[in-house]
């Protein structure tokens, strides 16, 4: 009998747990440790943030699903890993602090044979003074945040209906943020809502981003063919900004947010401010506060985690200049080298470096999007870890495990630009691979056949279909495992 502990119940962790529940024997055990009681389809938080969906439409309780699938569930926060056990434990174990209301604050320990770390990000609002719902801006990172953002947006629209001009700022709250695609989506959904409300002429909408140029999306931008020419996501995105009348500030590191004003530094070294009536600024991410100790109780956190708190896996973390970055730098199995029974997937693994070219302002401030590893790649990594753990349990740890590098992995993304079955629109994109491989695809680093972008109503239908499909899958309804990640 083996016990697999999955830390985190988001896209990567939940996917891993569900697949393990069908891959392992009944005598094996899968336990999910997550501080949250609900699963959240985060891509649809955008629509909660503009009032088009309710929290109940993007979340559901995890407990009943895990009970039905025979998966153990501890509503708790993992605080420390002991990969070698300790003086009183022969087996490796994790320390927990329960968030379950019936055991709130209680300390616990859980031994494991295999550990999948899918803890996702810590929303690091603290990196920028005044950033976030506890400060002076909104967020759509959780459904609760999105509900608050929606209420504030409604308030701004009501003011415009009374004839007041409003400045609505949407974007990234720090120079090292990731998920530019989500901020892009929210900016265009806000524009769509304001237009639908008939007050577009009173809204000044500004997209404030750490991207060097529009269309970067944290993946260094895309090149694709259109009507016989190669075009770029930069030109394509700028066209959309022009068409919809949204202003943009690029290469920006937000230094502080105060009531009604955001302050930022740009790559050219200038410091600027922007007054706003409504602001949705995403936080930077860092790894969750997880510690690690060896058998003697010595802290081995520096060995297991990168300085940003994400877990180091089978990547090449050697510091090297952008020109020397290679596809092979990226992890293939997501195993921790010293402890191959530990995997880190989704946002929890430490990328070897950015995907977009990193830049510094003339003052030395790093303004560089962090690599996205959410959505489809997260699900694929979760399933990969489950498949490999199941193989290791069945055939022994020496089994040849499967690999799925982001440099050999594609992604399909749909960025909403406005909701509505008849009047909605979205930018549909595919890219292959996510991490450019200039050796394999000289010039652009990606396959031109498999990288494309298109704007239209069909994209909205696809995003809506994905919403229902992935919630169906996450609820483990009949045939769920046939739906790809």
């Amino acid at each position, binding site marked *: 009998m083996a016990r697999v502990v999955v830390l985190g119940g988001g896209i990567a962790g939940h996917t891993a747990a569900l697949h393990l529940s069908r891959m392992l024997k009944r005598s094996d055990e899968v336990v999910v440790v997550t501080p949250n009681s609900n699963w959240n389809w985060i891509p649809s938080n955008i629509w909660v943030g503009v009032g088009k969906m309710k929290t109940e439409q993007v979340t559901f309780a995890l407990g009943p699903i895990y009970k039905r699938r025979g998966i153990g569930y501890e509503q708790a926060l993992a605080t420390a890993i002991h990969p070698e056990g300790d003086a009183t434990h022969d087996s490796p174990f994790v320390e927990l602090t329960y968030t379950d209301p019936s055991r709130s604050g209680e300390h616990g320990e859980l031994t494991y044979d295999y550990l999948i770390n899918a803890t996702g990000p810590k929303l690091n609002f603290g990196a920028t003074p005044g950033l976030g719902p506890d400060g002076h801006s909104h967020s759509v990172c959780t459904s609760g945040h999105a509900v608050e953002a929606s209420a504030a947006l409604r308030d701004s629209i009501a003011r415009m209906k009374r004839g007041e001009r409003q400045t609505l700022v949407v974007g990234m709250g720090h120079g090292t943020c990731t998920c530019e695609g989500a901020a892009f989506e929210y900016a265009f959904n806000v524009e769509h809502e304001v237009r639908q409300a008939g007050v577009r002429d009173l809204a000044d909408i500004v997209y404030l981003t750490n991207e060097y*140029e*529009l269309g970067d999306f944290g993946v260094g931008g895309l090149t694709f063919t259109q009507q016989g020419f190669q075009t770029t996501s*930069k*030109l394509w995105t*700028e*066209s959309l*900004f*022009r*068409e919809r009348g949204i*202003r*943009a*500030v*690029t*290469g920006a590191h937000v230094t502080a947010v105060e009531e009604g004003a955001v302050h930022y530094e*740009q*790559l*050219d070294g200038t410091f600027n401010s922007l007054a706003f009536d409504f602001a949705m600024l995403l936080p930077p991410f860092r790894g969750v506060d997880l510690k690690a100790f060896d058998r003697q109780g010595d802290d081995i956190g520096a060995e297991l985690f990168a300085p940003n708190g994400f877990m180091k896996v089978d990547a090449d973390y050697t510091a090297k200049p952008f020109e020397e970055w290679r596809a092979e730098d990226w992890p293939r199995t997501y195993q921790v080298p010293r402890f191959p029974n530990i995997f880190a997937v989704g946002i929890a693994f430490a990328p070897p470096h950015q995907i977009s070219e990193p830049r510094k302002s003339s003052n030395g401030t790093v303004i560089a999007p962090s690599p996205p590893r959410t959505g489809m790649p997260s699900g*694929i990594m979760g399933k990969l870890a489950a498949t490999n753990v199941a193989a290791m349990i069945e055939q022994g740890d020496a089994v040849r495990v499967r690999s*799925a590098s982001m440099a050999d*992995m*594609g*992604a*399909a993304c749909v960025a909403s630009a406005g909701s509505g079955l*008849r*009047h909605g*629109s979205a930018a*549909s994109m*595919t890219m*292959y691979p996510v991490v450019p491989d200039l050796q394999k695809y000289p010039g652009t680093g990606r396959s031109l056949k*498999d990288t*494309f972008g*298109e*704007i*239209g*109503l*069909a*994209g909205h*239908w*696809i995003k809506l279909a994905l919403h229902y499909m992935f919630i169906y899958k996450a609820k483990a309804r009949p045939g769920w495992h046939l739906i*790809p*990640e």
Partner: protein
Amino acid sequence: MDHTADDIASAPLPTPATLRARSSLLVQLERFLAINLKMAKIIRKEHH
């Protein structure tokens, strides 16, 4: 110097015909199928 405002101002605008196509039910139904096929191709690469 941030050139983004100038870049946006000089970006190509879609023609009225393109805008109509982007919201035409008939055209978009065809695009829905075509985009799904493109995405399915990417997904197949992951699962084989």
